[in-house]
């Protein structure tokens, strides 16, 4: 048997390295941030609590809010292949 994924609309925000507050607002709480060893004023990655434990979001990753309200990071190339913007 073959199956096709049902089209679903999700909310997502891309982490640019400069919009951590926006990501935290999107998720609804503050996140653990991994500092950069070369420049301690910079954040190297974010720790995203997901249904399968803590996942790391690197620069450029999208943070997706799933259909059940859960959050998880997604690599930018996968996101581009899987999703397109919806006109509101």
């Amino acid at each position, binding site marked *: 048997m073959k199956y096709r994924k049902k089209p679903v609309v999700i909310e997502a925000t891309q982490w640019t390295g400069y919009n951590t507050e926006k990501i935290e607002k999107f998720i609804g709480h503050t996140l653990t941030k*991994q500092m*950069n060893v070369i420049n301690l004023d910079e954040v190297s*990655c974010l720790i995203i609590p997901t249904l399968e434990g803590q996942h790391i979001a690197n620069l450029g990753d999208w943070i997706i809010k799933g259909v059940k309200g859960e959050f998880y990071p997604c690599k930018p190339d996968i996101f581009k292949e899987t999703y397109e913007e919806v006109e509101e």
Partner: protein
Amino acid sequence: MKVILEKPVIFKTIIEILGEFTKDVKLVFEKEQITIHAISTNVAFIEFKLSRKMFSKYELEGEKEEVDISLTDLKGIVSKVGPTDVFTMMVKDNQLYCVTMGKRKKVFRMGLLSEDVEIKPLDLSKFQPKNSVTLPIVDFNDTVNDFDAKITAVKIKLEEDKLIMFIDDADITTKMSIEIKKATDVKINKVEELVACKLNISYLKSIQKISRIATKLKWNLEKDTPSIFIVNVPDKFEMKYLVAPMIENE
């Protein structure tokens, strides 16, 4: 350049640890030591200094020689070096020759990298965490291994008489804490009132192999500052390993 190691286990372990960090590396041969730096995803920085005294032969063409090589390839070569083999490295005609002499003689030849491997060494003197704990590496390894493989980060607290590593994140169902108490082989030097930090546990696992070649680890820590792990075996080698902290709230 031609150098010979009668006991290659330290060099072999160093290359294996570095292999967790980077694919290419620059070996800097100087009069008294070989220095190697590596950085991992801007989170951890490692510096190894291997003393000239470890070598039975140590010949350089000048004061300093830099050798840029594929660490992946070198790691493959050192994996074939036995603990009692004599290991020779020699640079000739832009090639690195590695020869192991044991029951069998093995000869490897690899091209030096044409592009310069650029790893800017960190100025380690600007990081001076005030507090420290010195402990057996085996205790450090056992403690790190006790945390579940699914755990990303571990919190660390230093008290007057103990080092505590724990997890209490709201999104983790099983909270856990492990204490290492002050003892004859565990020394604690605490200056700050509250010493607490959070580190990515995978970076603590990256240096566990160091237990093959040393017994004691000094861990310097301070709130919101990179932790520095130091392993120093006089006349043999020194490792300095920096891991940037995780920040929970800003």
